[in-house]
């Protein structure tokens, strides 16, 4: 009988302890909020698991991989040229720049990177800078829209439409360009294209000025971005940030200046960089980069040389169709290239290019032959996003939107 009473007492004590625990949960100092993977501010399929204390973030855990397609696995199973369409789908806001970066990496492996004709190099620079303007226009437009300035998006999208028209005339596709080939380009510039480009460069300067007027001294925009998401230079380097995000954190570094590729060392442009590393600085850096890209476009147009666009090597570039049908040697080259691909030497190379989002690098480990043994894509968005769990804690939940917008990432590239 006594024993029964003791059990009852114990039970009620346990219940009360349970009640206290329950109450603590209800009073809950911390709350878990799931943001994404389909949320307009996460620009694709990024998912954030946020731990909140009221409106303040105490812990952030980015979940990525929703767009993982196994590009690196696919690359191990096809020839170098066959992989170019897959690079369109990395940073799908700047496919031309990805095509160029990948081709340069393979050309480095083949040892033909210094044999590219001048015209090819100039056209590739034009491609890269067009892609940069296009990516930054979307990045800024979406960033501004996320923090409440909807109009800018409409302006920048109008300009992007013009870029897409130019790209369509150049490559035959608006989005998935697949323009470069190992050792050259799929085709030369169409007739009259340079005039169109010159016209566009005039127009886009005006549009950039308009976006600048709408945002740079816009009180709401400045209030929402200044001193928000501050990333110090040390943190930016340690977390592997590259591109505009690194430059925003007071770091004057651009691969086009530090390790010039193509003809960037013959062109005149400035590298903008920020001061404190907040969202506003990253915005300013992108804004100025677009102006510098327009400068580069104008210089390329003025200097654009004539001549061939492909290397003169039958083992690298597909021969002229007419010759394939009439000459034995070209027929053999055509057959070998289509069935085996370029015969790469054994060795390993890494090539990183300054893409709109940062350093896009390709590491190719070759055992010889037409197929890479291992191809690693060093995606700038992957490294840029890894800083979120460090930067987000301490910010309000509404700042997440501004910080994500200012980091300007693309999940296609992050997840690969």
């Amino acid at each position: 009988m006594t024993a029964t009473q003791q059990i009852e007492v114990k039970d009620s004590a346990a219940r009360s302890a349970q009640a206290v625990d329950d109450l603590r949960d209800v009073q809950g100092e911390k709350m878990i909020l799931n943001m994404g993977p389909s949320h307009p501010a996460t620009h694709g399929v990024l998912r954030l698991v946020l731990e909140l204390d009221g409106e303040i973030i105490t812990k952030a855990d980015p979940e990525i991989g929703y767009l993982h397609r196994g590009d690196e696995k696919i690359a191990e199973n096809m020839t170098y040229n066959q992989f170019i369409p897959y690079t369109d789908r990395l940073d799908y806001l700047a496919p031309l720049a990805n095509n160029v970066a990948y081709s340069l990496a393979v050309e480095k492996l083949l040892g033909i990177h210094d044999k590219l004709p001048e015209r090819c190099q100039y056209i590739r620079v034009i491609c890269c800078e067009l892609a940069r303007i296009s990516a930054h226009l979307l990045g800024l437009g979406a960033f501004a829209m996320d923090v409440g300035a909807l109009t800018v998006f409409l302006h920048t999208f109008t300009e992007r439409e013009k870029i897409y028209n130019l790209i369509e005339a150049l490559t035959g596709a608006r989005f998935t360009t697949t323009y470069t080939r190992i050792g050259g380009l799929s085709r030369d510039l169409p007739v009259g294209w340079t005039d169109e480009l010159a016209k566009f460069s005039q127009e886009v300067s005006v549009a950039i000025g308009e976006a600048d007027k709408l945002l740079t001294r816009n009180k709401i925009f400045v209030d929402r971005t200044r001193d928000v998401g501050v990333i110090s230079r040390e943190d930016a380097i340690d977390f592997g940030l590259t591109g505009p995000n690194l430059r925003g954190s007071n770091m004057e570094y651009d691969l086009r200046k530090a390790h010039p590729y193509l003809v960037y060392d013959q062109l005149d442009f400035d590298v903008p960089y920020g001061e404190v590393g907040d969202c506003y600085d990253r915005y300013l850096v992108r804004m100025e980069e677009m102006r510098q890209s327009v400068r580069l476009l104008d210089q390329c147009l003025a200097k654009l040389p004539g001549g061939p666009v492909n290397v003169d090597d039958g083992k690298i570039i597909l021969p002229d169709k007419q010759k394939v049908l009439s000459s034995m040697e070209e027929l053999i080259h055509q057959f070998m290239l289509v069935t085996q691909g370029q015969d790469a030497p054994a060795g390993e190379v890494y090539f990183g290019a300054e893409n709109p989002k940062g350093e896009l690098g390709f590491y190719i480990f070759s055992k010889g032959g037409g197929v890479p043994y291992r191809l690693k894509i060093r995606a700038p968005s992957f490294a840029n996003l890894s800083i979120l769990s460090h930067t987000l804690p301490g910010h309000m939940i509404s700042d997440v939107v501004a910080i994500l917008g200012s980091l300007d990432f693309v999940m296609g590239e992050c997840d690969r």
Partner: protein
Amino acid sequence: MPSQPERERRLSPETRMTAKQLAKTLKQQFKGIVSGPVEFRGELTLEVSDASRIAEVCQFAKAEQGFDFLVDLTTIDNHEETPRWTAVYHIYGYEHFCHLRLKTSVSEEESELPTVSSVWRTANWHEREAYDMMGIRFAGHPDLRRILMWEGYPYFPLRKDFPLAGKPSEMPDVAFSDPAPLEGGPFVTMAGGEDSTAREPRERNPEG
């Protein structure tokens, strides 16, 4: 970060360290375990023979040689060779603009490397990816979870013995994990073969 005059001294063309000099210093510091450098297309690769000391080598490269940026960390599956795994570290210094590549190999039985996430914080995600794709563990990593595949996924898809078409996995709450509709790549072609089914197998290195 070094002071401004020190930075300028390190960056000026006369006093700037070259990648070769840096590689030599690193080799001297770790006598017997660092070999190379091998040069290919102007890039230097150093081989670290003792994989368990890779973090120490990295720490030295960062602290004493100014390699403050881990560009990339990746792994290679040397299928049917020993040792099976090779880890590749691309390091870079903003103070001297030099790249170096460090490589180290580890056996399949061990499949474990010391983490470098305490040296460069960016290594955290890179190592998680290497673990996710290849199944190599990193000892001392603060949060070694899968990153691109979902938690609980039973395979390591970048291994050479994993078929391109994928494998069905018995995971609840996943929409489908059957081989992809095109079964692993629409443009996979091989020379030879009698008919188009043999030339375009739709599935490389199938099971068994």
